[in-house]
């Protein structure tokens, strides 16, 4: 069991709902959240892959960055607000269309990853960005973004409401019955919807590899909206345990485990987040390391591993078949979809090719492992919905 935290745990708006559902509440990033409900992680995991899982991710850090004095010229205002955040992140923010969301990386001066986050261009308001950061890093992230925007734009935290995710192949049918129109959103786009008088920000996005949505709901409407979703028999509540096993199968990195301030975007296999325009101009924090790694190759690469036998957990050493230690597991566990142990970790590029036979040390014993292409389970995003 975890030690008693120094600070009292924060409660999400739906805390009473999780307790009423007999969720097993655990401390996570300063919040009290359900790791699983009585059905258990494997059932919850498979339900999400087969139907629709409802997740409470209200510990995360949604926010809105708004120009202090927008001109009303939508393109000029967007360029102005994008210019404030671009020096901190890897992505092309200026190039976002209204309502488009982009996965990007917040960089530190050394070329390491300070956080991974989503940045969207408001579909409605001139000079406004929707920014969602991780729970454990949100204080530092918000301070950095606010400082970078000081005097020119204001960062409004929006982490006092509920952030919910509905994920799985039936999510589109379930959600469009409550919010007609969500079916027309493509992957990584968002729009504002009204539900019983409340304004919801709904994006087609998620952290499971499945089609689905993430929804920012005002605290006052959170319980009613949660209940309305759970009233649909295709929906079951899903805890953090299955959220982790789902994202691991989808090969998606978890900040604080697979990504940290020492890991670069090139090492993490996240070069797709590097804007071509901004690579050429070199105006990204930590650009020196990035350019060197792009030119000469990184020291290590994030890889997927199939592991034979017991799961290799975070911290397990990765070795050559002969036993030389070459890297470390950063996330590992059991894949409910594949019924076998899988892991993410870092190895030197010479060992990173799919099919390479390696080993992992679990409780001092060597177990065979093999580099496997990511994702372990194919993504099923809906990029262009049928009209």
């Amino acid at each position, binding site marked *: 069991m975890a030690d008693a935290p120094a600070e009292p745990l924060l409660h999400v708006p739906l805390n009473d709902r999780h307790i009423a559902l007999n969720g097993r509440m655990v401390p996570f990033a300063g919040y009290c959240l359900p790791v699983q409900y009585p059905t258990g992680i494997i059932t919850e995991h498979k339900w999400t892959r087969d139907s629709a899982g409802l997740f409470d991710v209200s510990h995360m850090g949604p926010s809105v960055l708004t120009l202090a004095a927008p001109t009303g010229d939508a393109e000029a205002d967007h360029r102005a607000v994008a210019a404030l955040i671009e020096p901190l992140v890897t992505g092309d923010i200026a190039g976002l269309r209204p309502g488009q969301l982009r996965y990007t990386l917040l960089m530190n001066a050394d070329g390491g990853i300070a956080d991974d986050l989503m940045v969207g261009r408001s579909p409605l308001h001139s000079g406004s960005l929707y920014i969602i950061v991780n729970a454990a890093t949100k204080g530092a992230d918000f301070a950095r973004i606010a400082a970078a925007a000081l005097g020119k734009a204001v960062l409004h935290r929006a982490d006092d409401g509920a952030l919910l995710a509905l994920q799985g192949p039936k999510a589109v049918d379930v959600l469009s019955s409550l919010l007609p129109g969500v079916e027309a959103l493509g992957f990584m786009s968002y729009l504002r919807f009204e539900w019983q008088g409340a304004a919801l920000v709904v994006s087609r996005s998620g952290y499971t590899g499945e089609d689905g949505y993430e929804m920012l709901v005002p605290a006052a409407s959170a319980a009613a909206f949660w209940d309305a979703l759970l009233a649909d028999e295709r929906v079951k509540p899903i805890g953090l345990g299955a959220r982790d096993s789902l994202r691991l199968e989808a090969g998606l990195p978890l900040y604080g485990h697979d990504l940290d301030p020492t890991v670069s975007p090139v090492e993490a296999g996240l070069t797709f987040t590097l804007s071509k325009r901004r690579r050429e101009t070199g105006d990204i924090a930590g650009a020196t390391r990035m350019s060197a790694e792009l030119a000469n190759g990184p020291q290590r690469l994030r890889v997927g591993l199939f592991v034979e036998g*017991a799961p290799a957990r975070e911290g397990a050493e990765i070795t050559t078949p002969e036993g030389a230690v070459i890297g470390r597991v950063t996330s590992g566990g*059991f894949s409910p979809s594949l019924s076998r142990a899988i892991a993410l970790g870092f190895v030197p590029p010479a060992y990173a090719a799919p099919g390479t036979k390696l080993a992992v040390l679990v409780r001092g014993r060597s177990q065979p492992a093999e580099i496997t292409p990511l994702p372990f389970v194919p993504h099923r995003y809906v990029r262009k919905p049928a009209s």
Partner: protein
Amino acid sequence: MTKFTKDHEYIKTDGTVGITQYAQEQLGDIVFVELPAIGKTLKQGDEAAVVESVKAASEIYAPASGTVVAVNEALSGEPGLINTDPDGAGWIFKLALDDAGELDGLMDADAYARIAV
């Protein structure tokens, strides 16, 4: 009479060891079990086996000193037996006890029920 440890193992009078209903509920879905080698000698409290849930690995300690005389091979293919029948088909290993008197120091069912809440 079945006896219980504070770490939520049970041991039957014939030396059969497993984890309790309460423990399997706390661990959740068991996905892998590392069994001891037959013939291994264990002191009371030694790490004897490992059960892994989706989230974490948990050590199983020997409730008493003895020699491992049998292991439940069925768990290799079907670790979830610990969830569905911890007290029966989900047994883990069997000890030939060095000293049956060691069991007197463990909890009976009534005493265990008071800590398994």
